């Protein structure tokens, strides 16, 4: 299963067909095609789907899941699972609903607060997993439960109001065209592409593929793992911020529905759940596809009860398809 190359120094003068197929399976090729195709269907069913306000609405719906999936990708790439996001997003959401700080300065303070919450929980996860050597799923399950408990202590029932500035500006469009939430996600992707070109970025892949070899090669495995959890936490914090902007209110369980969908988005993006292969951008598009699928189904009048069935089926198809394609690519 080592045929898909996540690193950047991997192109080889292979036959055109083979390299094309590899290009497709590697990185985000397949999922981008899937997304564009789905968007075309959406546009066909809903002619207004291509108007700026519809695009912005879709972006606003997509952003929290996309950011959470991006965070999950950090941990999955380094071979681990992170369940704590459900708790982190809930805490950020209720905090913003209980302590609304108005104005642009307030928004800046709020986002810093969310990032701090995420980074702290990520640091705890990282400490438990990297230094105390707990299994990531067990450690983050514990922190998730604790964080959900904290969220309930802060706000024990849905309610409260998120600062108006955040609610309006973060879901708005710049110049009536560019959705702010889309820009936030885009800047995260840009940061990721930059990070990938650092020693830390390469080390995440190395640790995910073979921890022992990475360690013998001089990579500080513990620090990398710790860093991956903190990076993930920061993104969950940002996801909580964007979710609050979208819902405008607090809910101590707001993070929970995103939990399993992040894994679906990561897998849909072609990132190996066994670590070492994949990328953050693909997960973001994976998340966008899941959200778009909801919209498409809704616009075709399918009851929302069926959404889950379709999302699961698409996930299986995408994984089967990408495995099949990479196998063909391998034979070339």
């Amino acid at each position, binding site marked *: 299963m080592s045929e898909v190359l996540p690193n950047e120094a991997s192109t080889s003068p292979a036959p055109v067909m083979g390299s094309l197929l590899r290009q497709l399976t590697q990185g985000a090729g397949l999922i981008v095609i899937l997304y564009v195709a789905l968007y075309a269907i959406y546009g066909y069913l809903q002619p207004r789907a291509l108007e700026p306000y519809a695009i912005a609405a879709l972006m606003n719906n997509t952003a929290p899941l996309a950011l959470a999936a991006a965070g999950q990708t950090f941990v999955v790439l380094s071979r681990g699972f992170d369940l704590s996001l459900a708790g982190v997003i809930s805490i950020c959401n209720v905090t913003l609903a209980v302590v609304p700080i108005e104005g642009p300065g307030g928004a800046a303070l709020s986002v810093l607060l969310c990032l701090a919450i995420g980074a702290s929980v990520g640091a705890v996860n990282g400490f438990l997993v990297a230094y105390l050597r707990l299994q990531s799923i067990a450690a983050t399950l514990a922190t998730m439960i604790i964080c959900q408990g904290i969220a309930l202590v802060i706000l024990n029932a849905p309610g409260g109001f998120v600062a108006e500035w955040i609610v309006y500006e973060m879901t708005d469009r710049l110049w009536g065209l560019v959705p702010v939430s889309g820009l936030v996600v885009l800047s995260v992707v840009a940061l990721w592409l930059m990070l990938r070109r650092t020693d830390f970025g390469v080390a995440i892949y190395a640790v995910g593929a073979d921890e022992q070899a990475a360690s013998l090669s001089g990579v*500080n495995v513990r620090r990398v793992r710790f860093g991956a959890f903190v990076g993930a936490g920061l993104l969950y914090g940002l996801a909580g911020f964007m979710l609050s902007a979208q819902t405008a209110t607090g809910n101590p369980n707001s993070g929970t529905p995103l939990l399993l969908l992040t894994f679906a988005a990561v897998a849909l993006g072609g990132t190996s759940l066994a670590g070492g292969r994949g990328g953050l951008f693909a997960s973001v598009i994976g998340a966008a596809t899941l959200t778009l699928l909801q919209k498409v189904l809704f616009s075709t009048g399918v009851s929302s009860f069926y959404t889950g069935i379709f999302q699961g089926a698409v996930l299986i198809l995408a994984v089967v398809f990408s495995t099949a394609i990479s196998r063909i690519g391998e034979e070339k």
Partner: protein
Amino acid sequence: MTGAVAVAGGEAVPGAALELRAEGVCKSYGATVALEHADIALQAGEVHALLGENGAGKSTLVRILTGAVTPDAGRMYLHGAAYTPHSITDARAVEVATAFQELSLVPNLSVAQNLLLPRLASSRSGLISRADVLAKGREILLRHDLERIDPAAEVARLPLSDRQRIEIARAAENAGRVLILDEPSASLAETDWLFAQVENAKARGVAILYISHRLAEVRAICSVATVLRNGRSIATVDLDDASDGDIFEMMVGHRVDPARPAARSTSGPREARVAVTDIAGSELNGVSFDLNAGEVLGVAALEGQGQRELFRCLAGVQKPEAGEIRIDGRPASYRSPRQALRFGSGVSYLPEERKTEGILAGLSAATNVVLPFLPRISRAGMVGQGREVSAAQDAANAVEMNPRYLTFPIGELSGGNQQKALMARTLASGAKTLLLFDPTRGVDVGTKESIYAAISAFADEGGSVLFYSSELPEIVQLADRCLVLYGGRVFESFSGEDINEQRLVAAMIGHHDATGQEATR
């Protein structure tokens, strides 16, 4: 990590030209002493061999020198200053680099990325330039005569031999002072390239520690050898002055053989119960032998000479790519240990890894013993604990296992008793052929004796036993005949009084003993 290695300004020690010196280092894991007392001194510009049997402490000493393991006691000096690495990175910071036996390349990264790990980015921008990484990688490959390897190729796609070469090239690149090569030729077909690299490093004034099981290779490239035995460094000798016999004696510890029990009576015509013809695949390159009724056949080999695959093929766990296995004259057609148990007179397998392949930790010892033949003792598909225990009783007696333990969950028993239970299971299966892979690994002396007695008794009753052991005295004591595997073949075979440790050791490292008999098959 920082400050762990104090090199500059350490107290000057007489004879500071010694590049790396370790004195009295030792390491224990719990009650197990892996290294009792080792002294070794590597000189700059000299290739120093480290020799010893399996379990002599070689790998522990290597791990200590590379910083992967911290010794319990002892002192180490590099260039006359104290050397106390706490990690591989520490060791590398003072230019001590290692090519590991198990290879330490990251499979999903490119050759160039691996060569430069952990620092790929330029120090100015902190960002990695792909072109820059490739150029640097190409340069390193060129420096080590590997320009035919594409620096952009993903390591996982390269053949094992190239991966080993890259591992060695990377270590040589990072080794300014000390280069440790752990079994560097394990997957290389020829040694020309390797020796050229060693000579290069030597010319640069690097001290080289060369660990190999192949004595001919050691003689070709090394000038000095340190011999380890039972966790102690026995001697450091000049290789020009030491004969092969001297070295084997140092490795084994004595020339005299332990008393062998009287040879088993070989009355009656012997028929081959198991006949193996030219089986090959994975590590095996054509192995043939017969195993007769009433015979104990030992297999001696260093790690990774194909013994594992041989047993797995015979047990039905793995299918040989070529060759034939006949049981009682019929071609073996079983595909699993379960089928093997019922094939002909039956083949029962005691696997190597007790924890992962052998026991079902949550179930009682009795259940573990009777598992292979549950249907035989069940009544209408139901099995009561009483029946299990009584069925397991006889087998437990055969290995002198206290019947009291039969009702305990096997996971709670000591390692020795777990092994006895597994041995009992193998015996109780009713099979006439036993395949025992290292049956006494990690058990105490008393348990060993019980297991030896059970094996002998089984053979006396006409059973056939094929056993591999990493402990040579065991083979000498138990085996009627012994095969030595080397490089996936039967390198030599000994029988009766010819089985002694020195001959076995010589054959195990691919060395024909001139005085010994030639390979019989």
